[in-house]
């Protein structure tokens, strides 16, 4: 596909062209899925700001960029990659450059885990590995997700075998090279934890250069009965980049998903998290932290569906907004009529460091069952002048005091990143960001 995605017909033509260009090895069923996605894209069109779900994250600027797709990854030196890797030993590692899997930089042999790249699995038409592909996302909830399915290229396909409890994390590292400039990337991941499996997944999107590109990614995660996943996700794209991430979760009985998110980069970034409880006793925990400064938008849309009784969800998102930064938080929890004994708690707190920053926050609890425990809370506030005075009276200047308080605000979420080197580098990045926004302040 070499079409510009400035409008729907170009996107459709491009996607069609891409499918036609695929080798015959791309299994028939996959080609059908791709076509279904094109139909879906045709039905839905690309999101528009008059749609409620996209009202605050306008895609016009993104479409105007005219990003094109490419099947080439930029050349990246091994040392440049290694500088960004986790410092602790990992169970497996998948490195992607410009959305494409880099076998030479990766390590995919792990005991009791089947791992392949999406491209590899598609080339082999590996139906077993890809059976669940699209099972949670369907053809896509919006045009971009459909576009991802229609033109998916590469990603991670991971299956942790039943009962396997991984002591070390699986690392997915995405690097955007200089070569990503002007490109539309569309990674797609499929992660399955079989019955009673346990794993930790670190998924990061970093940029090696300050270029403008569009990362349009989809991740599907299936947790079978009793499985447990800690999913640590960091979006630190280039400040010029567009980042759209769709995460679909399917949680079977007694499974436990813990998602910890951080968004720091991008000129425009949006994360949609959709969780569907499939059976009782499952727990879904989501924590998130977003930082925005001038010319940045960060958007989190959560959609938690308590479709069955006796599940628990907890969401805690925090934002630090400075300059003319904008953020959107839309947390929807639906507790269906039959979903008795549900437990759902949603919280969103925003720290506004400037008067020009803007937050649109919307917690939505729709409770149709009567025997449930649910709560939600949203706060938007500034740094506490009493706390600032307290710190200054102990000798810290205003910048130092603000930084300590901002870090304190972020700490609750940072602490949930359990992989130490990740938590430390993230903490340093946040520290640097706050220092920068301090100096940006008059």
């Amino acid at each position, binding site marked *: 596909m070499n079409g510009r995605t400035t409008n729907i017909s170009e996107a459709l033509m491009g996607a069609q062209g891409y499918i036609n260009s695929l080798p015959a090895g791309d299994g028939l069923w996959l080609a059908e899925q791709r076509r279904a996605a094109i139909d879906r894209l045709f039905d839905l069109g690309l999101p528009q700001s008059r749609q409620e779900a996209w009202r605050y994250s306008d895609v016009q600027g993104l479409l105007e960029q005219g990003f094109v797709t490419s099947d080439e990854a930029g050349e990246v030196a091994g040392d440049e990659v290694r500088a960004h890797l986790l410092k602790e030993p990992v169970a497996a590692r998948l490195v992607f450059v410009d959305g494409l899997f880099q076998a030479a930089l990766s390590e995919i042999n792990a005991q009791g885990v089947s791992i392949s790249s999406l491209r590899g699995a598609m080339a082999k038409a590996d139906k077993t590995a890809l059976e669940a592909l699209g099972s949670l996302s369907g053809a896509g909830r919006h045009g971009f997700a459909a576009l991802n399915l229609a033109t998916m290229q590469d990603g991670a396909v991971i299956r942790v075998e039943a009962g396997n409890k991984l002591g070390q994390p699986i690392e997915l590292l995405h690097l955007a090279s200089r070569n990503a400039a002007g490109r539309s990337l569309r990674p797609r991941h499929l992660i399955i934890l079989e019955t009673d499996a346990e794993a930790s997944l670190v998924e990061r999107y970093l940029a090696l250069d300050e270029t403008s590109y569009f990362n349009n990614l989809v991740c599907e995660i299936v947790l079978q009965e009793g499985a447990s996943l800690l999913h640590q996700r960091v979006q630190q794209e280039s400040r010029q980049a567009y980042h759209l991430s769709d995460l679909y979760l399917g949680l079977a009985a007694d499974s436990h998903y813990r998602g910890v998110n951080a968004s720091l980069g991008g000129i425009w970034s949006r994360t949609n998290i959709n969780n569907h409880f499939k059976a009782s006793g499952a727990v879904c925990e989501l924590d998130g932290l977003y930082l925005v400064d001038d010319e940045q938008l960060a958007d989190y849309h959560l959609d938690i569906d308590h479709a069955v009784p006796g599940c628990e969800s907890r969401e805690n998102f925090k934002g630090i907004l400075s300059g003319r930064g904008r953020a959107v938080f839309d947390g929807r929890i639906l507790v269906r009529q039959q979903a008795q004994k549900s437990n759902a708690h949603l919280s969103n707190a925003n720290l506004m460091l400037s008067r020009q920053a803007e937050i649109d926050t919307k917690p939505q609890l729709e409770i149709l069952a009567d025997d449930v425990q649910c709560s939600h809370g949203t706060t938007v506030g500034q740094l*506490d*002048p*009493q*706390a600032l*005075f*307290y*710190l*200054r*009276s*102990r*000798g*810290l*200047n*205003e910048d*130092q005091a603000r930084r*300590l*308080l901002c*870090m*304190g*605000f*972020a*700490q*609750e979420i940072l602490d949930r990143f359990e992989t130490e080197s990740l938590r430390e580098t993230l903490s340093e990045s946040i520290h640097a960001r706050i220092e920068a926004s301090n100096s940006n302040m008059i």
Partner: protein
Amino acid sequence: MLSIKNLKANVEGKEILKGIDLEVKAGEVHAIMGPNGSGKSTLAHILSGRDGYEITDGSIQLQGEDLLELATEERAHKGVFLAMQYPVELPGVNNMTFLRESLNAVRKARGQEELDAVSFMKLVREKARQVQLDEKLLKRSVNAGFSGGEKKRNEILQMAVLEPTLAILDETDSGLDIDALRTVADGVNMLRSPDRAMLVVTHYQRLLDYIQPDHVHVLAGGRIIRSGGKELALELEERGYGWLLEEVAA
């Protein structure tokens, strides 16, 4: 060491301090007593540089330096320390990090070398032991979920670490039971030193049983209406403030 002359201050246009004169020498402990609303806490806050007060007249000098010209943190660098009546809770801010950054900010401003992590740890452990603060509290967020006594002891720990020239204790006894009060007072007494002046602001005489002042001043209606030795505090304990206010009015 501390010299306050004819200090007048307004809060939201209302005159709260109406001409305070006070001289405190190095090594001395002065108690500022007085009924509620007399301006005691205002005086403590103004000394530490809190916002929201308009100084309309007078001067404050610490070791010959004009405090009113300095920002809050600069006063801290010069050795002003205010132990707060209600220490602020700082969730997510580690107590140890806070203490270390404070100490190093002060040391840096004084042209001293910053302390490395190891030396700092050693220092803070020793000070925590001195003021009987449970070491576990050092690893927690500043004051978050601390009991009233723990918060006040944490203030005294900060004071012990920062080693101020002028220590101001604002209603340090409020909200403490007698045992906690004794521990806090022990900490304060340990920090008495010939190079340090202390101002103890309190409504009740009770605290002064444990921290014996050299001088006692009674503040009422924004003025110091009586100064004396520690026996003045005892008299106030026995007779309340009413007689004194009447005597001054007469």
